[in-house]
């Protein structure tokens, strides 16, 4: 009987053919001398037949897959189209003076860099122009129509993200065009290094400016990000010598590490993503406050 109870749970699987070879052989051996299990197998085989028979004439309707694909395409198109529409709707709401002023500053940067043959100017300028532009994209002080915008069904973080896409995208194109202009007197590989040099800092500085603008205000956001960015260009060795700083080596080491930070695009971009998430949360809270006040 011990054998019998050991095998009884396997009988449905024996009938359905899902036992492995060793289990199946052992069970076949057991069945030769256990009439109770044979009886069970017979019942399960009847059941298996009936279950299979009931499904015999069921053909999957091929229209189901076509309808599923149509639904998938519809959703995909919908998402892309809605995102495009949202971005387009936000273009007129971005402060108008941002477009020419960013372009003008970048143009001046290109001219100076060309004259003095010093591309570091562009590398320094591009993140600053972008950060200042991003700092003015949201909030009641920058957007008198914000309350009206928030009255729509679109959530504040989507509005924020759409404006960030527009302004960051615009400044990215400007900086790329300016760097492209450097091809006139620089080889392509150096221009590529130039782009890598400003892309990480620009991304991080924009995200930091956005968070600070939402958290504190636009003016402070621009001031703090500029100081943070420009601090790396301090001549550490000279300052330490001139002011006879006691912990000179410590100060220089810190400054080197700080410069290294600004030269690590993956770290800067990763931090920027985190900051944008925080900005989305801050923007959402600010939107709720404004709608409640209204």
């Amino acid at each position, binding site marked *: 009987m011990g054998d019998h109870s050991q095998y009884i749970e396997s009988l449905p699987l024996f*009938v359905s053919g899902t036992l492995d070879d060793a289990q199946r052989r052992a069970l076949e051996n057991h069945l030769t001398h256990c*009439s109770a299990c044979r009886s069970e197998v*017979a019942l399960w085989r009847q059941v298996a037949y009936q*279950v299979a028979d009931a499904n015999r004439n069921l053909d*999957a309707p091929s229209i189901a897959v076509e309808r599923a694909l149509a639904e998938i395409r519809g959703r995909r198109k919908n998402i892309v189209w809605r995102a495009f529409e949202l971005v387009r709707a936000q273009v007129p709401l971005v402060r108008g003076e941002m477009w020419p002023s960013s372009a003008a500053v970048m143009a001046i940067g290109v001219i100076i860099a060309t004259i003095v043959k010093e591309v570091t100017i562009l590398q320094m300028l591009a993140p600053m122009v972008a950060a200042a532009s991003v700092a003015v994209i949201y909030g009641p002080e920058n957007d008198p129509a914000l309350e009206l915008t928030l009255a729509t069904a679109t959530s504040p973080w989507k509005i924020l993200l759409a404006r960030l896409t527009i302004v960051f995208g615009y400044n990215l194109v400007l900086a790329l065009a300016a760097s492209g202009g450097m091809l006139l007197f620089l080889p392509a590989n150096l221009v590529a290094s130039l782009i890598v040099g400003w892309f990480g800092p620009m991304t991080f500085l924009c995200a930091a400016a956005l968070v600070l603008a939402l958290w504190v205000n636009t003016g402070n956001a621009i001031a703090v990000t500029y100081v943070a960015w420009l601090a790396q260009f301090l001549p550490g060795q000279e300052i330490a010598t001139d002011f006879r700083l006691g912990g000179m080596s410590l100060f220089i080491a810190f400054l080197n590490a700080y410069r290294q930070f600004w030269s690590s695009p993956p770290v800067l971009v990763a931090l920027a993503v985190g900051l944008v998430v925080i900005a989305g949360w801050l923007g959402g809270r600010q939107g709720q406050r404004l709608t409640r006040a209204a």
Partner: protein
Amino acid sequence: MNIPLRELSGKASKSRMMQASTIPLNLTAAVSVRRNEEPSLDRSISSVDKDLQLVRRVAAGDETALRALFAAYGQRLFAYAVRLTRNPSVAEDVLQESLVAAWRGAARFRGQGRVVAWLLGIVHHKALNAIRSRSPVLLEEPEELGDDQVPLDEVMAEHEQAALLRVGLESLSLKHRMVLELVFYQGLDLTEVALVCDCPVGTVKSRLSYAKAHLRHIMEQSGLKAEDLE
């Protein structure tokens, strides 16, 4: 009694059963009339890899891969949806929703089981949702089958054992029928059934045991003995 063992195994008698068109009263027939497209359980590594590749392609947005999955498993998925909902029209909607869900969830599939079990799990979930929204009473436990609940007079006129069994299967609750469906038609092992039904393996075993006792009870009511089935 000498039993031809190869006859007892569902696996061994599949090819013959594929050709069966009438109900075999002598019980030499069996299991695998179940899938037109798959003559046997194909658990070979190449098949598993192929399915996994298809799912990865679906995750990457390849529509032909979804069509290929449908060609391979559509019939089984539809059959399961029909069994659960008992309504081909609702089952068609369930199938469509399941394919959309598979498309959206393909990126999260890590090959932790067979693709067919994953797909059946989706159909299971969608079908139960459809039942809940349309006729929640189907999900409730049936009352114990009383002596007067089996329309024996009608049944006896037909092939007695097979007809009794059909009545018995119909009178089982949804959760018991779905386990029988997954084991005997879909060819899943107990672990896979547990995953699809989202319950412990022990529950699957107890449902099988309950279904067997229930069917035996019905057989015995009509005077059939277990030995008569052999």
